[in-house]
C-alpha cells in the first residue's frame, strides 16, 4: 500500500477548503516588516542626498540646489538603505507593493516637489 499516504493526502485535500488566498478579492494583512515599497514624505526632507548616495541602484535622485527628490520605482530593490540613512525619517517603508506600471517613464516617476511642500 505504498501509494496509500499520497492518496490519503490528496483526498483529504479535496475534502478540505483549498489553501488558496483569493488574492485580489481578499487581501491578507501584511506583516509589520513587509517590504512593499519605499514611501516618501517631503515635509521634513532637507535634501541632504544621503539617501541618494546610499541607494545602490541610484533609484533616488535628490538635489539640494533644486530642492527636488525623485524615485524611480523600477529601479528600487527595496534594500532599505535609504530608510536607514535618512536622519529625518522622510522615507518610510510601505507594506503595499508599488502597483504595476504601464509605462516605465523614468521622468514620469521622478516627482519633483516645490520647497514648501504641498
Amino acid at each position, binding site marked *: 500500500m505504498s*501509494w496509500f499516504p*499520497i*492518496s490519503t493526502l*490528496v*483526498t483529504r*485535500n479535496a475534502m478540505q477548503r483549498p*489553501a*488558496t488566498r*483569493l488574492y485580489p478579492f481578499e487581501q491578507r494583512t501584511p506583516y509589520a516588516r513587509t517590504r512593499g515599497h519605499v514611501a516618501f514624505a517631503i515635509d521634513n526632507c532637507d535634501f541632504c542626498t544621503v539617501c541618494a548616495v546610499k541607494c545602490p541602484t541610484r533609484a533616488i535622485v535628490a538635489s539640494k540646489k533644486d530642492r527636488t527628490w525623485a524615485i524611480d520605482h523600477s529601479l528600487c530593490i527595496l534594500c532599505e538603505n535609504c530608510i536607514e540613512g535618512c536622519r529625518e525619517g522622510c522615507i518610510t517603508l510601505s507594506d503595499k507593493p508599488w502597483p504595476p506600471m504601464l509605462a516605465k517613464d523614468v521622468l514620469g516617476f521622478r516627482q519633483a516637489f516645490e520647497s514648501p511642500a504641498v
Partner: protein
Amino acid sequence: MTAHAWTLAFAFLILGPLLGALLAGLDRILTARMQSRRGPPLLQPIYDVLKLFEKDTLVVTSLQTLYLWGFLLFMAISGFILFLGGDLLLSLFALAVSGILLCLAAYATNSPYSNIGSSRELMLMMAYEPMLLIVPLGFFLVTGSFRVSDIIAGEPWQVLELGGILIGFLFILTIKLRKSPFDLSSSHHGHQELVKGLTTDFSGSDLALVEIGHWYENVILLGWLYLFFAPLGVAWALPISLILFFGEVLVDNTHARLKWAPTLRLSWWVTGLFGVTNLVLLSLFA
C-alpha cells in the same frame, strides 16, 4: 438502426464536445482541489478553446493543419459509430486512425520536441492497442457480436464475466486520458521534459482542434466504459462509469510519470494478465 440511435449519434457529434469539455473542466477542478487549490471555473476548457480560435495560428508547415482535421474527423467518426450502436471494432479502428493522424501532424512539423512526442505517442499506442482490441473481443465472446447495440442489450452480469478486461481497460484508460503516470507524450499540465510534447508546435486554431478532439475522446472513452455497465440500465451504469472515469483523476494525482519502457512493459503485462486471462477463461467456460 433505430431513430433513437441516429439521434444519439448526431447528438454526439454536436453535444459531444460540450460534454467532453465539461468532463475536462470537472477534471481540472477536481485536480485542483486534490492539490488544495481553488482551480479554474467549470467552463474553463471552453474558454480556452474559444480563446485559441481568437489567436493567430503559427504553423511550421501548412500540412499539419490537414492532419489535424483528419484527426478530428476520425475521432468524430469513431464516436459516431459508437453512439449509433454500430460496430465496436470499427469504432476502435477509427480511433486508431485518428491517433495516427495526430502523430503525423506532430511529425510533420519536424521539430525535435514534437517528434519525440509523437514517437512516444506511438509507443503508447503500441502499449494500449492490444488491451483496447481485447475489449471488443471480450464483448464478442460474451454477447456474440461486435455491435454496440447488441452489447447494450446483453445480460446484466456480463460486467462480472468481463471483470479482468474491465481492469485492463481502466488501466489503459489512464494512458488514453494522458494521465500520470502515463502522460509521456504530452500532458495537460505544463512543466515536463517534452515541453508540450506532441502539441508543442501547434498553436491557435490548430491547438483548438486538438483540444476538441480530446473532448470527443473523453466522451468516447466514457462511452466505452459505460458499455461495460450498460446492461444494468442508465441509472446504475452512468454513475458507476462516471465515478470510475473520475477515479482516473485520483490516479493522476498519486503517481509520478513513468518512462516509456516500463510503461510498455507494464501495460503489456496488465493486458496479458487481466485481458488475455479473462478471454481465455471466457472461451473455456462460455
